[in-house]
């Protein structure tokens, strides 16, 4: 061992990098492709991938608003007739905006809502719990206890659960991102299956999309994000990844 050491002194600088480059290339050496994969890809070309289940909910959502914001989102058994023609003016505009944003959210094209909400008819404790829930980022989950702690009442996890159950504006106020501390789902006013559907949708949708030519980073759903050419879209796992890659946050949707 000693002898070998004297024959080949430890390489330094560029020489070392070259040697370690060769070693890394060899170690990264690609594995073989599973045979069934090619067949499976070709078979799936016939399937329509854009048909997404969450979007089917849209026709069943009934919305209500006050001049201050959306007051209610509820799930009806059957199709809800298109927005009542009588609702004009500010309320009509709010309802139309909410419906458009909900549609984009359910299609996986939006990760945040800009439509204002009106929680003034909700009692104080419930309202503050819902306001905390509204700040949970897209694709993440928190526990009922976490919300209680944020409110300075760590023992009130059960009361938080009741507040979430009474959320008049599900989806827009994302109470589906609140789960039990043990990782199980807890409850959901639209049904547990939907809670899971929303969480699966969110976890598979990258929240940050950059434009390769302008190097501007948007949250998914921003008007600028939608104008990025399909070939120039860059997905980022985390905000820090995008910033360290030289992307600037968009001034409109403010991801940072």
């Amino acid at each position, binding site marked *: 061992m000693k002898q070998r050491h004297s024959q080949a002194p430890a390489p330094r600088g560029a020489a070392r990098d070259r040697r370690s480059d060769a070693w890394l290339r060899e170690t990264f050496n*690609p*594995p073989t492709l599973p045979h069934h994969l090619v067949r499976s890809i070709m078979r799936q070309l016939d399937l329509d*991938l854009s048909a997404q289940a969450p979007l089917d909910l849209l026709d069943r959502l009934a919305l209500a608003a006050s001049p201050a914001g959306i007051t209610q989102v509820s799930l009806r058994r059957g199709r809800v007739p298109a927005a009542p023609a009588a609702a004009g003016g500010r309320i009509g505009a709010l309802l139309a905006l909410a419906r458009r944003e909900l549609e984009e959210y359910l299609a996986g094209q939006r990760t945040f809502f800009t439509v204002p909400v009106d929680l003034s008819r909700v009692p104080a404790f419930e309202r503050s719990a819902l306001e905390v829930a509204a700040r949970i980022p897209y694709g*993440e989950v928190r526990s009922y206890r976490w919300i209680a702690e944020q409110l300075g009442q760590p023992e009130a996890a059960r009361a938080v659960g009741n507040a979430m159950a009474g959320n008049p504006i599900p989806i827009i106020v994302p109470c589906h991102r609140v789960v039990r501390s043990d990782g199980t789902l807890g409850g959901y006013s639209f049904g547990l299956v939907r809670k899971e559907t929303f969480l699966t949708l969110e976890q598979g949708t990258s929240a940050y999309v950059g434009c*390769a030519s302008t190097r501007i980073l948007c949250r998914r759903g921003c008007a600028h994000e939608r104008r990025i050419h399909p070939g120039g879209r*860059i997905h980022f796992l985390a905000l820090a990844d995008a910033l360290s890659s030289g992307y600037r946050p968009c001034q409109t949707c403010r991801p940072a």
Partner: protein
Amino acid sequence: MQESDEEVFGLVQRGDRRAFNTLVHRFGRRAYAVALRLLGRREDAEDAVQLAFLRAYESRVSYDSRWRFSTWFYRILVNACVDELRRRRPTEPVAAAEIPGAENPERSAMNRERQRCLQAALTEVPTEARIVLTLYYGDAKSYREIGEIRGVSVNTVKTHLRRGRLALRRALRARGVEEP
């Protein structure tokens, strides 16, 4: 003379689905290798490769023949892998038993062990640096190509690469593997 990737994809754009088969064969193995190094689990890598090819097929109309097909496709592929990483983030890291590279009988035991350590060490490298390392060492892409794939400058690629190499070296050393 073999048709270029761009010419083949031109046929796909004009409705020749079988031409797409050619591209799946040309890029499948390399795409799988990249996805496997980024994701660690074989099933996840297969899913990501499938998704990337399907997305490429679906967005064939938006492809401009002035672009290199491979750059455009790798961009879609890496996006699909990032989506998969995000989907998985709340769950556990890759279990040792699932680490790939072990099924190849051509490889010596020592090489297999090295592969296993590499895969485990890669999970400790930050995402963007791992993407750059994988494209650079696993697919012999140039700085410029990597920059084009991820929409970053050549300098950023070099920064990620340097950072990734350091993190990887540290993680490998912690596993008793010393780069020469």
